[in-house]
């Protein structure tokens, strides 16, 4: 600690980053300039400062030149800030006596004029040197870790994340909003490109998740509240009543037979009916009935109770109430999946108006053995087999008008799969796929697509502008351009399948609000780094798996789930973690307890409390993220954020202003 009272001795290292910086910023000129700045003892250029050699030079200088401050001007601190902090630490220098300047993303990458970019790099470094002279050493505190995890979402991503964690020996809470786990994958009939039966490969894993000694499955529930921070999250889950005693239900089905209320079955996309007492699907986990409280006669109007009167096992309990379950975990994996684009928005295709226009997920239910037609693909208008079927790609994807420029990645292959299955069922049917570009970049994908072509599936490159219906036959007329041949094609089809894109799941706002997660422009959750940290979020201890991060197929989802579980386990297998010391601190002498900081803090990390000296704000150190909102807004300047103190920031501002021409006095 003694070092801070000494005269600052600063070493500055300016990086070429190959040609990333070097091609625009004249690094040598910058180094020559930096040498003239006060307190700078040594300034060097380096091709790759982050390389072993680059780091060794810094460490050598720390010992030989007796440096007590280090400034590296290179890339974003999000890239290598931690690298250089470790470099300093290993050489015996407190890592918070290091300052980083971004002259790549914020300078060389965005500028083309060499002179001006060089000037800007010099300005930025001068600011950092000014700040560095005032840096204080900080110590990291330790905090215990709750060795349990929460996985939100029980689709394929959540199931695999939970199983991976549980198999390591970590207690895992798997929370699913629907009555059964399984997600969208449970609704699929087969998977591409192997044509595995989707539930055959998923349901054993669902059962594992249901039975695992380390997994506590909480279904028909949603996250009510999350507080805390990495290593110590406190979770409140609201569990809806099922009105069934799970242990006693023998799924005999008597209740369903007796129930007088029929409703559209969500699992079957409304193509089939279910009763008000039901089981979502045969392989559901947990495998017992539940009562839909919004539609049950007894629960809405009183009376009835036919199910209870007839249940041979006394499994029905109308006195059940919602339950709040609370527990603590050290890490959270968000795996809430996606929702399918609402095809009724695309009015020109007439979904919901023309009976023979269906979505790709409707098709999955139609082709599924336990679906509404027992696996026979029939035209919804008259339940007869279709002769001419069309698939339209990119419905709600790659469509600026619908607010989605992105490709949903799975629809091309899903359509090839569905067309292939149709070909098997109807060898003589004419099958057309209207596509924008066929995208099949995956193992075995292109081969599967080629096989589809060989089977006589006709691929037409052109997105139809609209579908018209012949009101007499319910047949669908598509006029489209074939951009390969330049011909205008008119086709009368008797079934059209819309390959709907993937959208962020419903209700994601609530969750991202609770966890302070960032969203990408498309609305999916933003990963910490697009290449190197795809399963992490920017919030420590919160990880990502599956389509909630971006549309992806099942193999990619399972792979990312493994990544998220590994990242979480890396944290949870430690007994304690180090907390970042860049935090706010309140000076109780100055604080008047106005509460503005408490109101503004996004993390619930500062609260006003009654003390002997009256109301005073107090920082909850472990929750504080060091964002600085409190310090910036405090009317009494009573809050300091360490590593970003007022003096340090003002010194930076001073440094910035030095390159301006002197201020002219203005006389009126």
């Amino acid at each position, binding site marked *: 600690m003694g070092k801070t009272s000494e005269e600052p001795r600063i070493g500055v290292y300016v990086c070429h980053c190959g040609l990333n910086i070097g091609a625009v910023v004249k690094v040598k000129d910058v180094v020559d300039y930096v040498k003239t700045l006060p307190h700078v003892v040594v300034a060097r250029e380096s091709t790759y400062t982050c390389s072993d050699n680059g780091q060794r030079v810094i460490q050598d200088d720390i010992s030989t030149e007796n440096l007590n401050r280090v400034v590296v001007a290179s890339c974003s601190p999000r890239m290598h800030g931690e690298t250089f902090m470790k470099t300093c630490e290993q050489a015996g220098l407190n890592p918070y006596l290091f300052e980083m300047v971004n002259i790549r993303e914020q300078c060389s990458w965005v500028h083309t004029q060499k002179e001006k970019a060089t000037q800007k790099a010099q300005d930025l470094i001068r600011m950092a040197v000014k700040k560095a002279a005032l840096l204080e050493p900080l110590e990291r505190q330790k905090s215990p870790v709750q060795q349990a995890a929460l996985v939100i979402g029980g689709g394929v991503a959540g199931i695999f994340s939970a199983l991976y964690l549980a198999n390591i020996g970590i207690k895992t809470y798997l929370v699913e909003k629907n009555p059964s786990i399984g997600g969208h994958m449970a609704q699929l009939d087969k998977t591409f490109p192997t044509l595995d039966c989707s539930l055959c490969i998923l349901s054993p894993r669902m059962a594992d998740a249901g039975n695992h000694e380390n997994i506590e499955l909480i279904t028909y529930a949603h996250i009510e509240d999350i507080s805390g921070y990495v290593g110590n999250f406190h979770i409140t889950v609201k569990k809806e009543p099922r009105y069934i005693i799970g242990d006693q239900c023998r799924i005999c089905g008597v209740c369903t037979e007796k129930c007088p209320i029929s409703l559209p079955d969500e699992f079957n996309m409304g193509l089939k009916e279910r009763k008000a007492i039901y089981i979502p699907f045969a392989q559901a986990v947990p495998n017992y009935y539940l009562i839909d409280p919004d539609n049950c006669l007894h629960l809405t109007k009183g009376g009835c109770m036919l199910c209870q009167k007839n249940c041979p096992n006394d499994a029905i309990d109308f006195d059940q109430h919602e339950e709040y379950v609370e527990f603590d975990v050290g890490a959270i994996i968000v795996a809430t999946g996606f929702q399918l684009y609402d095809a009724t928005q695309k*009015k*020109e295709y007439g979904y919901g108006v023309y009976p023979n226009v269906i979505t790709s997920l409707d098709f999955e239910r139609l082709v599924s053995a336990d679906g509404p037609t027992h696996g026979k693909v029939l035209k919804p208008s008259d339940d007869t087999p279709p002769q001419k079927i069309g698939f339209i790609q990119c419905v709600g994807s790659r469509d600026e008008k619908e607010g989605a420029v992105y490709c949903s990645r799975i629809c091309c292959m899903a359509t090839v799969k569905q067309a292939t299955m149709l070909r098997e069922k109807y060898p003589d049917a004419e099958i057309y796929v209207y596509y924008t570009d066929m995208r099949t970049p995956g193992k075995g994908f292109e081969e599967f697509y080629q096989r589809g072509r060989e089977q006589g599936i006709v691929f037409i490159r052109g997105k139809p502008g*609209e579908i*018209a*219906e*012949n*009101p*007499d036959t319910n047949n669908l*007329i598509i006029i489209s351009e074939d951009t390969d041949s330049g011909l205008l094609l008119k086709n009368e089809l008797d079934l059209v399948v819309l390959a709907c894109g993937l959208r962020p799941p419903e209700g994601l706002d609530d969750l991202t609000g609770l966890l302070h997660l960032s969203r990408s422009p498309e609305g999916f959750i933003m990963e910490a780094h697009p290449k190197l940290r795809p399963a992490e979020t920017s919030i420590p201890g919160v990880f990502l798996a599956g389509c909630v991060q971006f549309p992806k197929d099942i193999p990619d989802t399972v792979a990312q789930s493994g990544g998220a579980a590994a990242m979480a386990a890396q944290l949870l297998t430690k007994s304690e973690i180090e907390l970042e010391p860049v935090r706010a601190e309140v000076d109780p002498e100055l604080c008047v307890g106005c509460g503005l900081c408490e109101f503004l803090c996004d993390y619930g990390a500062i609260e006003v409390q009654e003390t002997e000296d009256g109301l005073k704000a107090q920082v909850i150190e472990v929750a504080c993220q060091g964002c600085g909102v409190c310090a910036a807004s405090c009317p009494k300047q009573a809050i300091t954020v360490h590593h970003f103190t007022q003096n340090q920031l003002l010194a930076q501002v001073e440094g910035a202003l030095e390159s301006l021409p002197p201020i002219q006095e203005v006389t009126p």
Partner: protein
Amino acid sequence: MKYALFLGCTVPVRTMGYELSTRAVMKKLGIELVDLKEFGCCGFPLESIDHDTYLSVATRNLAIAEEHGLPIMTMCSACNGSLLKAHMAMNDEKIKSHINDTLTPLKRHYNGSIEVKHAARVLYENIETIKEMATPLPLKIAAHYGCHYTKPSEIYEGFEDPEVPYSLDDVIRAVGAEPVQYENKKQCCGGAILGIDESVSLEMTREKLQHVKKTGADAMTLVCPFCDIMYDVNQRRIESHFDEKFGIPVLFLPQLVGLALGIPSDELGLRLNRVPVRSLLKTLGD
């Protein structure tokens, strides 16, 4: 309500029945129409050739309406789109100042304050009055919207749904008639390519007439002189070209509304319609 009536080039020369009926119906509804002699071409024919010149020609009309402090009512859908697009383009201050520069020698200047509405939209906005005044017409009517009346949707800012248009169907209902639905309702009349490839153009018109015929509609109704040329003026030509009989009367929307409002058929210019409307008038007991 008071509008400057923008006639355009085609309406007063080729579809006078449209002009007559519009004037008669608007009068009956208490909507005053003012003729501004200085109005010129709407600019539409120039739009795809020289955008700046188009904008200048179109904006000149907007400037004239602004001088008189009157919103514009158009009858032709192309005029409507052309003037409205120019008005929207003036939201860009740079374009506006450039176009105003070109208008300076003509001593015109447009500030950007003028509303442009299609006559059919005005009828739709007065649908409650029409309902009150109408004697129900026991007819089945097929609405043809055409292209420029609903598209591009951004210039209509929420009026009409380009994929599921409704305003003409609603007006048909308002006069007590039944709007019939048919297969290619949103299809173009074919008029746009009449000068380029007559056979394709006539084939497009024929297709729609076939679908309308199938519904057993008593008549079609439409809101654009170009569409009318295809369905009404060219109907007999199509019949002889394809050796196929249609005989579908084609009414401009104000003609249909006018009949329900009890305006004499002479004042609605019904005699000028090419496909005879006598049988239709008989159904109505005229």
